[in-house]
């Protein structure tokens, strides 16, 4: 119970937990970057007008979106060493899994953002003589970007939470570090409560920040 809540165990293992959080953040940032690049390419393919590209892109997106992230993690934890022919450690496997998985979601966000720009805007641009790229650059993308940013940021928070699923292959992120401490010191209550609070504070601050940005810039 709470009267035996031992804060020392947290303080004593703080450096260990911080290292875990660093890995969590690293994984999040790396997956965002990789996911955004691949996701943008997929979205462009989807909207390219070439049916083969668009089919490949939509198949990719639907495929990853019907799978649970844990299964994707298992897949790549199994596949990557097999393809490379040598063990590479869990981190790279899960990183690849996250990049490929997130790309499917980013693709949908970017596509929806571009399509959210009303057709009339495209016509208006064409009517004053802008070519396709000028129209994209000056009319469509700036508006699309405004629509996308809040969703992309929210997705980043979801991803940050989702990285905790690397637990299933034992990559030492924040949760796994806390879990190790919890079992070693037999302090399950303290460690899991702490983990929950840290995630809650970080994600809540993040989403409050997004809402503020949204209001400030009328995104």
């Amino acid at each position, binding site marked *: *119970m*709470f009267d035996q809540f031992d804060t020392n165990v947290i303080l004593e293992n703080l450096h260990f937990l911080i290292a875990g959080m660093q890995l969590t953040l690293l994984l999040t940032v790396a997956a965002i970057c990789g996911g955004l690049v691949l996701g943008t390419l997929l979205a462009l393919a989807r909207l390219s007008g070439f049916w083969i590209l668009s089919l490949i892109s939509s198949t990719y997106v639907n*495929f990853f979106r*019907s*799978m*649970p*992230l*844990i*299964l994707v993690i*298992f*897949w790549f934890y*199994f*596949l990557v060493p*097999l*393809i490379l*022919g040598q063990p590479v450690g869990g981190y790279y496997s899960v990183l690849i899994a996250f990049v490929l998985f997130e790309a499917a979601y980013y693709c949908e966000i970017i596509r929806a953002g571009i399509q959210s720009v009303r057709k009339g805007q495209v016509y208006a641009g064409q009517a004053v003589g802008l070519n396709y790229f000028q129209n994209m650059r000056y009319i469509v993308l700036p508006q699309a970007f405004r629509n996308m940013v809040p969703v992309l940021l929210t997705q980043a*928070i979801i991803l940050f*939470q*989702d990285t*905790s*699923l690397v*637990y*299933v292959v034992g990559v030492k992120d924040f*949760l796994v570090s806390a*879990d190790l401490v919890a079992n070693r010191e037999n302090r*399950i*209550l303290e460690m*899991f*409560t702490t*983990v*929950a609070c840290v*995630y*809650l504070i970080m*994600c*809540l601050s993040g*989403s409050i920040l997004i809402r503020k940005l949204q209001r400030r810039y009328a995104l």
Partner: protein
Amino acid sequence: MQYNWDWGVIFREPYQEWIISGIGWTISVSIAAWILAFSLGSIIGILRTTNNRISRRIATVYVEIFRNIPLIVQMFLWYFVFPELLPNDAGMWVKREMPMPEFTTAAVCLGLYTASRVAEQVRSGIQSIGQGQNNAGLATGLTTVQVYRYILLPVGYRIMIPPLTSEFLTIFKNSSVALTIGVLEITAQARQIEEYTFQGFEAFTTATVLYILVTSIVMILMRVVEGRVSIPGMISLGAK
């Protein structure tokens, strides 16, 4: 890349049985969690649209807490920490006597978590209908409860069919997190088969195909439902 293909493995015992039982658990956890998520989420979502400041506050706090802690952490909290916080007897009951403890915990946890997401969908569905309909109902003398019962909810839930379908599919996928507290659902079984037989391709492909299959069935089914309940003359309700 060296790999010995053996698709037969998934049809051999005990692996075939594992797969069948796995898909059974996946579906059971999903449905049990969905019933909880849908009912609780609806109540919380509706509370968030009411004029009562206190109930709105409570609903908001619920949503913010449950959606800002990773699901897997919530799983651990319910499974490991929650029984410790209960009075002795109740804690003992949860740990020792509660029927199917892993399943129950997983379903409740997933349900409570998803309720926060459902609540958001319900809230935005109702809010998209607009104040005008609310006023129109009130102006004819309907009470607030009647306005919800006869106007806002029937229209709102129609608008919500697509987002709620995707929430159900999310629950279905998220049910895999139950494996972290020992529910042997389909992903866990696939992993187990891989570990026993080293036939990862076959095992994971089976699980993948099953997920895609169920996802497709649910989507087709919901499209039929959506068509059945669509309002004549309206192209898109959400647009208004």
